[in-house]
C-alpha cells in the first residue's frame, strides 16, 4: 500500500532543496542538465504509478510523452490556441490516449502487456514519422514557452525555465501522491497484488486500470509539454521506444514502486550520462553494467536498497532494545 514514510518525505525534501540550490547556483550547462532531470523525473513518476503500483509495465510512456509534446505543438501552431490553453489541451489529450491504451491493454498481463504497449508506442511513432502534418522526420519548430512577464519572470532564461520545471515536478509529485493515496490508487495496488480477488470483491478491474493509465498519461503529457518547451522543437524521436525503455531503466535503477526512487533514478541516470559520456562514448555500457549490478543485487533499486537497509537496522535496534539485559541475541 502507498505510504509516504518519513524516509520518503525526507528524501523528497532533500531533493527539492538540492534542485532549488542547483537552480540558483548552476551555470548554463548545469541548468540544462537540471531541466533534463526534472522532465525525466516527471515521466518516470508517471511510469512508476502504473508499473510500480499497478504492475502494468508499460513500454509506451515515451510515446505518451511524445503525444503530449505533439498535441501541444499542434494546438499552438495549427489551432492557434494560446500557450496555456495548448498546454491544457495537450495534457487532456494525452490523458485520453492513455485511457484508451489502458482500457485496451487491461485484459493482458506480464509480457503480453509489455508487448501490446510497445506496439501502441511504435504505432504512434510510425504515424508521426510518416505524417506530413507533423513535419515528418524534420519535426516541428518554433514552439512557445508561456509568457510570465506579467510576474516579472522571463521563461526564456535557463534558470527561470528550470525553476518552472521544478514547480511542475512539485505539482506532479503532489498529484501522484494524492492519486496513489485515493480509493482508486488503493484499488490499483489491490489489483497488482491479487487481481482475481479484486474482481471477486466487485471491482471492474479494466476500468480501474484504464483510469490510472489515463491519469499516468496526463502526467506523461506534462513531461511532453515541458520537453517541447525546453528545446522549442520536437521530432518523432520523442516517441521512440528507446525513450520508454530508458524511462523503465530509470524506474528500476531508482526503485520500482517506491515513489521517490524513480526521481533518485532520474538524477543518477542523467548525471551518469553527462559525466560518463564526457569520458567515453560508450556510456550506455557503464549504465548497463550498473543496472545489471542493481538487478543482480536483488535490491529494489538505489532507493529500495537504502529503505531495506534502514528498515533492517531499525528492526535490529528494536530487537536489541526488547532483549533482556545480559542475554545474548541473534544479530
Amino acid at each position, binding site marked *: 500500500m502507498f505510504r509516504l514514510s518519513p524516509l520518503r518525505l525526507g528524501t523528497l525534501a532533500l531533493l527539492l532543496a538540492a534542485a532549488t540550490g542547483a537552480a540558483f547556483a548552476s551555470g548554463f550547462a548545469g541548468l540544462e542538465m537540471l531541466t533534463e532531470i526534472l522532465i525525466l523525473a516527471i515521466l518516470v513518476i508517471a511510469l512508476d504509478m502504473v508499473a510500480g503500483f499497478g504492475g502494468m509495465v508499460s513500454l509506451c510512456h515515451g510515446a505518451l510523452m511524445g503525444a503530449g509534446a505533439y498535441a501541444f505543438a499542434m494546438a499552438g501552431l495549427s489551432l492557434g490556441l494560446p500557450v496555456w490553453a495548448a498546454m491544457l489541451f495537450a495534457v487532456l489529450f494525452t490523458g485520453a490516449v492513455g485511457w484508451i491504451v489502458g482500457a485496451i491493454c487491461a485484459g493482458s498481463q506480464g509480457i503480453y502487456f509489455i508487448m501490446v504497449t510497445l506496439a501502441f508506442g511504435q504505432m504512434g511513432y510510425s504515424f508521426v514519422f510518416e505524417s506530413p502534418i507533423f513535419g515528418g522526420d524534420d519535426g516541428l519548430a518554433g514552439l512557445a514557452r508561456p509568457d510570465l512577464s506579467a510576474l516579472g519572470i522571463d521563461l526564456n532564461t535557463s534558470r527561470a525555465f528550470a525553476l518552472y520545471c521544478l514547480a511542475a515536478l512539485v505539482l506532479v509529485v503532489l498529484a501522484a501522491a494524492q*492519486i496513489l493515496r485515493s480509493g*482508486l490508487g488503493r484499488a490499483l495496488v489491490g489489483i497488482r497484488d491479487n487481481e482475481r480477488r479484486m474482481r471477486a*470483491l466487485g471491482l471492474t478491474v479494466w476500468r480501474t486500470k484504464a483510469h490510472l493509465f489515463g491519469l499516468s498519461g496526463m502526467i506523461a503529457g506534462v513531461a511532453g509539454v515541458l520537453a517541447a518547451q525546453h528545446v522549442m522543437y520536437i521530432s518523432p524521436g520523442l516517441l521512440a521506444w528507446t525513450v520508454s525503455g530508458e524511462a523503465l531503466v530509470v524506474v528500476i535503477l531508482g526503485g520500482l514502486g517506491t515513489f521517490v526512487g524513480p526521481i533518485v533514478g532520474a538524477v543518477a541516470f542523467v548525471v551518469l550520462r553527462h559525466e560518463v559520456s564526457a569520458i567515453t562514448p560508450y556510456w550506455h555500457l557503464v549504465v548497463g553494467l550498473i543496472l545489471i549490478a542493481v538487478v543482480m543485487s536483488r535490491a529494489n533499486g538505489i532507493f529500495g536498497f537504502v529503505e531495506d537497509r534502514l528498515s533492517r537496522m531499525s528492526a535490529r535496534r528494536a530487537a536489541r532494545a526488547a532483549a533482556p539485559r545480559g542475554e545474548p541475541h541473534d544479530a
Partner: protein
Amino acid sequence: MLEVRHLDKRFGPIHVTRDVSLRLEPGERRVILGPNGAGKTTLFNLLAGELAPDAGAILLGGRDITAAPVAERARQGLARSYQKNTLFDALSVAENLGLAAAVATGAARSILRDCLAMPEVRETVREVAARLHLSPHLDATVSAVSYGVRRQLEVGLALATRPRVILLDEPTSGIGPEMAHGFHHMLASLPRELTLLIVEHDMDLAFDVADRITVLNYGEVVFDGAPEEARNSAMLKDIYLGSWENA
C-alpha cells in the same frame, strides 16, 4: 434468494456438472457435501462467474445473472471465499478488510479521498474484525499471521462486502478441530438474513450449521434434504464409506 436451474458444464469429455438444480431461500444455510472430484468447487466457480456454464441458468434474488461477469455478481450481493487463501499478503489485515469494504461501498472509485480512512469503511472493518475475532491482528501483515487467522480473514473479505449470499469454499480446510469448532460457532452466529452456501468436508460443520444438505457425486445432485435425513441415508453412507458414522 439463489436459484440454479439445470446447470451443466463439461471440460472436454469430462462432465463435471450434470443438470444441477438448487434453490436457496433467503437466510438459508445450505451445505454441499461430496467426495473429492464431485464437482463442488466447479459448481462454486460457475455460481461466482469464474466459469461459464454450457447450459442452465443462475438467478440471484429473481434476477438472471448467468451471463453477468464476476464483479457484477459481487455487486449484486454474491460474495465468495476460496478454498485456497486468496488474500492481499503484503497488506495488513485491516487493509485487506478495508479494501473489500471500499470496493463494495464504491469508495475505491474515489480519486479525492483515501478509501481506507472513510468512516463507513472503518466501521465495516471494525465490525467484521470483531465478529471474526480478528481485532487483535488488524495491524499485522497477512504474511505474518497464522494460517488459522488467514482462513478467518478469507471469510472476512467476503463478509466486508456486505453481501446477500456468501459462497464459502471449505472454510475450515487445514485448521485444527478447536478452531474449526469456533468457526462453526461464528458461522451460526452470522445475521440470519444472510444466505450461506458452504462446500465442506467436515461433517460436524455440515450437521451443526446446515438447514439443508445437498450431496454431489460425479457432478450431479444425488441427495437434497434435511441434515437428519442425510444422516440416515444409506446411499450417502455408501458414498462416504460410512465416514459420517463418527459425525
